[in-house]
């Protein structure tokens, strides 16, 4: 489908064997980052007691994320607030920009979400090793397991640990791609059934648009909250 095509904008740039030219995916990442920066700059410029709309938006999202971190990862995770906040905002804005017709949804490509997820995974692992040293490996050895079963359990635990970035990235990517594909399919029905029978799929697509906006928000939320949970595992080691 054409809405998922990545194409080059401007000249081709090559570093060694890698093609790093500017594409529409990079364009929409930049657009969403600039939009976030704009909203939060405008929102924090004038700290009036009665907030205007942009300030309200900025403050609401700030308290939302800060409450989420406090609830899931505790007060120890406070230093990582900036990272989780920007992650949540970036995913949310990429999802939401994808809902505008004729735009490109960055998060509907698995490579983007997988890079985000593996960055989180590596970061959380490094934090765990810094905080606990080699004691972090205790995460793979649950207490109260008979010694006979231990090798098997450790392998299972390692696999379940390694599966985290994959489940994180596949979830976001599959939700976004499935939603956009479904909307495309229903849009196709509207065209092929014409003015006589096209009203039913049209009403479906209106409802689906609402659902997709919900999913776009929900997936950004799930992405951020799972990051908090993994961070919680790394910071407060109790298994």
């Amino acid at each position: 489908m054409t809405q998922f095509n990545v194409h080059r904008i401007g000249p081709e740039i090559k570093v060694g064997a890698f093609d790093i030219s500017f594409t529409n995916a990079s364009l929409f990442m930049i657009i969403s980052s600039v939009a976030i920066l704009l909203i939060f700059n405008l929102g924090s410029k004038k700290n009036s007691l009665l907030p205007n709309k942009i300030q309200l938006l900025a403050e609401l999202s700030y308290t939302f994320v800060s409450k989420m971190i406090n609830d899931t990862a505790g007060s120890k995770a406070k230093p990582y607030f900036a990272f989780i906040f920007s992650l949540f905002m970036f995913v949310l804005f990429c999802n939401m920009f994808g809902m505008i017709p004729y735009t490109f949804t960055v998060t509907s490509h698995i490579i983007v979400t997988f890079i985000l997820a593996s960055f989180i995974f590596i970061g959380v692992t490094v934090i765990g090793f810094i905080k606990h040293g080699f004691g972090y490996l205790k995460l793979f050895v649950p207490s109260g397991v008979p010694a006979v079963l231990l090798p098997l359990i450790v392998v299972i635990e390692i696999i379940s640990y390694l599966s985290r970035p994959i489940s994180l990235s596949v979830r976001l990517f599959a939700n976004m791609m499935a939603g956009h594909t479904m909307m495309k399919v229903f849009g196709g029905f509207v065209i092929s059934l014409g003015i006589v029978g096209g009203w039913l799929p049209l009403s479906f697509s209106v409802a689906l648009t609402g659902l997709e906006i919900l999913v776009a928000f929900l997936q950004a939320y799930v992405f951020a909250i799972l990051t908090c949970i993994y961070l919680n595992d790394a910071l407060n080691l109790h298994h």
Partner: protein
Amino acid sequence: MPKDQFKTRLEIAKKKISKKNLYDNKNNPSSIGTAFKLSTELVSAVAVGTIIGFIFDKTFGTKPWFILIFFFVGVVAGITNVIRSAKNMQK
């Protein structure tokens, strides 16, 4: 004593509020999200297990064996993942 009575009533009211919040939190992040979370957790562990088995087979040249073993280990890991996150949801 009116003061004691007030205290107990305050306690009861506080308990009610905390219960209500818990209930709200549980229902808030829509059921689609949680359902999808469980399914991806199961599938991703199986995928990781199979990939590890494939890599071992490639390096040691023992074609079907490691992939078979690690596939089933991956399934078990996926099931433990699902059970763990379901337990987390119930908290």
